[in-house]
């Protein structure tokens, strides 16, 4: 550090833990010459612009960010440890709560990994339903991102529009799973439930009307002078840097790397859908916005195709050792009852081995790495957290920008602290 750093106390603490009044020195003894000093400010962990409980300690030279030191772990909930104590099907409710902006996609990611570990091939109807679940999640997650980012940058109206669309998807999710947010919709080898009768019509109505909202948001933001001025050329990452920082998802694609797990390592038959991988050019905040906005309409296309091809048939595989028998049979049929008992008490055993499945989550590549030693509980359940890894590029992106740009850059990463800290 060439310049001397001066501590400037912004938080005024008031009362201490014992109820006594605290006096905190404001600055240093002699009046600091602010032009020659670096200043230290603390943002978070409880700050509306950090999208959760992220804490940033920022060193400033005037208004220019010299460096950013993120402090994480304020939402560390021990998911991975907890997973070692749960059966595979019991982990699915935990996956909801990691990235709680796209719960259904997380359910799918975990179920796919567990199925790969156990060598299960799911039914055609289940495959299409899972595609629907993933793409619905992508839309609601990007809607939260749009809403909160536009608030951060001073536009309030898109937030209300975005949340209206979310409520419509929430209604569909609730119709399907009974829960608005914590859906737990998949099971190893199938789904928790089939979609109800009017779900398809409801979702089709959504896909027909959603583009209108998108075009409204597009009209308000894309050529808005304030929006463009605050996002273009801010937080630029080149393609090589993005790869070197292991970024994924919209962050990687905004820098011009056309890697999308759905196309390049397809799962759930994504290769048979007709959609475009959206790639940016400059790798700045504006391109990330454009990529996410366009991904919403691509998701909409996928949803329409999925609805068109939704086949009839069972949603679960036929193996009674993996899938719980229906309650009515478990109560009347001896064999079904034994299977029910064994699954509930002992869980589904996975063979020795390990599996990694990456899926294209709204935030980036969500990887699930499962290691099994042959028992019903995994030895290791590792989540490759896309927003954790994307966030690690923040200090690199923010250095040299203005403090207000730091907020825009941080918003553009699209973090969700439940997943960053797990």
């Amino acid at each position, binding site marked *: 550090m060439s310049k001397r750093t001066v501590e400037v106390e912004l938080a005024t603490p008031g009362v201490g*833990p014992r109820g006594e009044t605290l006096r905190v020195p404001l600055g240093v003894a002699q009046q600091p010459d602010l032009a020659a000093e670096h200043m230290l400010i603390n943002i978070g962990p409880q700050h509306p612009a950090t999208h959760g409980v992220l804490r940033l300690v920022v060193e400033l030279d005037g208004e220019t960010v010299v460096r950013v030191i993120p402090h994480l*772990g304020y939402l560390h909930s021990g998911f991975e440890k907890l997973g070692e104590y749960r059966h595979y099907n019991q982990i699915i409710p935990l996956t909801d709560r990691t990235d709680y902006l796209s719960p259904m996609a997380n359910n799918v990611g975990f179920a796919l990994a567990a199925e790969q570990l156990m060598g299960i091939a799911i039914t055609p109807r289940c495959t299409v339903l899972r595609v629907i679940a993933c793409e619905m999640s992508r839309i609601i997650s990007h809607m939260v991102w749009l809403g909160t980012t536009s608030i951060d940058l001073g536009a309030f109206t898109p*937030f*209300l529009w975005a949340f209206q669309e979310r409520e419509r998807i929430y209604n569909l999710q609730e119709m399907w799973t009974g829960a*608005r947010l*914590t859906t737990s919709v998949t099971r190893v080898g199938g789904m928790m439930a089939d979609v109800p009768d009017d779900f398809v019509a409801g979702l089709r109505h959504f896909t027909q009307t959603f583009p209108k909202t998108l075009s409204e948001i597009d009209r308000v933001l894309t050529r808005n002078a304030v929006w463009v001025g605050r996002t273009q050329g801010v937080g630029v990452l080149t393609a090589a840097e993005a790869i070197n920082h292991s970024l994924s998802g919209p962050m990687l694609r905004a820098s011009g790397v056309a890697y999308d797990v759905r196309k390049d390592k397809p799962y759930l038959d994504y290769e048979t859908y007709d959609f475009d991988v959206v790639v940016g050019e400059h790798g700045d905040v504006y391109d990330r916005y454009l990529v996410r906005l366009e991904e919403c309409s691509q998701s909409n296309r996928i949803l329409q195709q999925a609805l068109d091809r939704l086949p009839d048939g069972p949603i679960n595989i036929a193996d009674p050792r993996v899938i719980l028998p229906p309650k009515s049979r478990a109560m009347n049929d001896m064999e079904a009852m034994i299977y029910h008992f064994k699954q509930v008490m002992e869980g589904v055993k996975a063979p020795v081995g390990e599996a990694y499945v990456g899926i294209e989550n709204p935030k980036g590549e969500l990887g699930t790495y499962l290691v099994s030693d042959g028992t019903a509980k995994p030895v290791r359940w590792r989540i490759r957290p896309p927003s954790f890894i994307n966030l690690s590029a923040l200090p690199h992106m923010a250095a040299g920008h203005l403090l207000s740009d730091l907020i825009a850059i941080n918003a553009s990463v699209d973090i969700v602290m439940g997943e960053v800290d797990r």
Partner: protein
Amino acid sequence: MKRVLETKHVSGQSPNYLLAKFQDLVDWAVNASRANSLWPMPFGTACCAIEFMATAASRYDFARFGMERQAFSPRQADVLICAGRLPFKLASVIRRIYDQMPQPKWVISMGACASTGGIFDNYAMVQGIDTIVPVDVYVPGCPPRPEGLLYGVLLLHKKIKGESLFDHVPRREEQPLDDRGLRLPPEQIDEISEPFGNSVHQFRSA
């Protein structure tokens, strides 16, 4: 004022009748104004914060219940809404925020995690924020529906309307930490943090 009222005799009624009426009137006015313009301090950490946001957004809109202004600074807030799980790393932060809020103040614990630790009975999670700050209303659910949160807010209104300025106890003691640095005796914390229900059986990993 009090003396004047006490010496005034009204035939057939106890001398304190008017005083009591007057106090009721004051309480009613103060409590109604307090209850109907609560300024929430959203301490949103995890999934429940998303439902909190949904409650604040257009469909549910808790501005209808006087929570128009969200105070993002604890110094201008009346009610701390802890929405989401609270790991140990955040414990001192929520305590600091609570200490910074001016009196009178209330706390709503939203969701299973904030109230009891929820599904996270492990090394990282505080088993209920009542081990750290006093809580007025617990809203159950994982996450609570927006209607649930609104119901909790209405319960808090009810509680506020039942309070009185005149009963000569501090409306809400500051509840500082004791010299061990805890709000409750350690045995009590251990007891309320004990696993219950299904999680009792989930301590073996194989």
